[in-house]
């Protein structure tokens, strides 16, 4: 991820299925802060890959609270994330 994207906060919304998987095409960027549109787009793509990679098998979530987590708004703030 670019240095500019690493200083960009992106807010992402997604819907989840009952088995905790991201609904295809539901993941979208609601907004961003701290960078320009290109760096926000790259940061969003990175977030998208992370969500899809992590959620491919379904997130482990309490099924009886589906109504609570059916829609999720994620704010990705990479400022304190570690680079490996």
């Amino acid at each position, binding site marked *: 991820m670019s240095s500019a994207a690493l200083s960009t906060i992106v807010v992402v919304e997604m819907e989840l299925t009952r088995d905790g998987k991201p609904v295809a095409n539901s993941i979208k960027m609601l907004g961003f802060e701290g960078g320009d549109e290109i760096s926000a787009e790259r940061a969003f793509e990175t977030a998208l890959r992370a969500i899809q990679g992590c959620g*491919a098998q379904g*997130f482990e979530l309490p099924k009886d609270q589906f109504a609570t987590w059916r829609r999720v*708004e994620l704010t990705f703030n990479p400022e304190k994330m570690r680079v490996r």
Partner: protein
Amino acid sequence: MKRLIYFGVLAFGLWTGAGMAQNGPLRIEITDGVIEPLTFAVPMFEAENIEAVTIATEMSRIVATDLSSSGLFREVPPSRFIAQRSSFAEPVRYPDWRAINTQALVTAAVKTTSFGRLTVKFRIFDIYSGVQLGSGMQLSGSTKAVRRMAHKVADQVYARITGEGPYFDSKIVFVSESGPKDQRLKRLAIMDYDGENLQFLTGNENTVLAPRVSSDGKQVLYTSWETGFPQIYQLNVRSAARKRLPTPDNGMAFSPRFSPDAKRVVYSFEQGGNTDIYMMELSSARSARMTSSPSIDTAPSFSPDGRSIVFESDRSGTQQLYVMSVAGGTPKRISFGNGRYGTPVWSPRGDLIAFTKQSNGRFGIGVMRTDGSEERLLSASFLDEGPSWSPNGRVIMFTRETQGPKGAPSLYSVDISGRNLRALNLRSPASDPSWGPVLP
């Protein structure tokens, strides 16, 4: 809930205790995580005619090597591939690539013509999203420029995925060294960013130092002892024609650097034990003195907008970094850490200054904001010095010299995150790298 691997894949758990609006979405802030290299696959490029088979193989390996060398990508080796694509036009089997944890896929086809021309068309796919990134691209060039075209493909992939500017298709001018340590022969050389295609620009009859490439990559300034004293020379990269810059004869001129528009040169001039910084208009060959302190002011470097310079000076009693306007005025000290600072170089992005720092008997390469804040050391060893920025401002190349009677310099690069420290694999000792622009 604050754990998610940004590039990697790990468990993702939700707490119901996270911020939640009534009837609205569950709101979570992700502040913790690990950003890992992106996994990618480069299947062997398809050869569209028999003459292109060798080229296709070579190009696909160069692209993969370039991407891996950046430290921002990690290759999924071809031995793990499930999907064996037989045609560039064939649809991508996303599940096969997901199964081996591939996040990005680069496919390409290569064709040669009877006129010594080469065409490469390529596509980039985001495997997790199941989409092609952007439209396909096509490049054409000479069959003699296989490596350059492969670097161009890698640059496009790198730029599209990371958002950084490209840098693989670029050249580095440096000092190539040979002979014993106490009688080292030094001459200028130029090579691709990865050490390939090395060519010498000068003979080794005169010691040369500190080459600096112009922003268009066509000219090099360097210091030579040809006259018995250090003087500054300007060399045309294409013709190797050179001329001495008309600095005064009654002193030593050294440490030159072009302005971003290559119309001016800043340099150091020593006379009577005092070294100051001067600026020369190349069109008129007139020099103007920029500093007048009774100290050693040297190693000037322009900001990318050409309005300021950063330089090193011992005016405070120890070697520190100073920034001043090209229009004049009082230099402002920006380095305040423990140790001595030198050889500052302004990033092509304008946001950082790289430098050499000497502290506790060791030398390291570091970066700081242009106001001196957020200083970070990226390397440390017996002797690391002379940073030079990649054209995209993401990577720094420098000289690392080993200790002892057989100690020799070599070139290293490091990402500005401090990761991905790599030695450039050259056959002979090398020092003083100066990274040129991305080639047109």
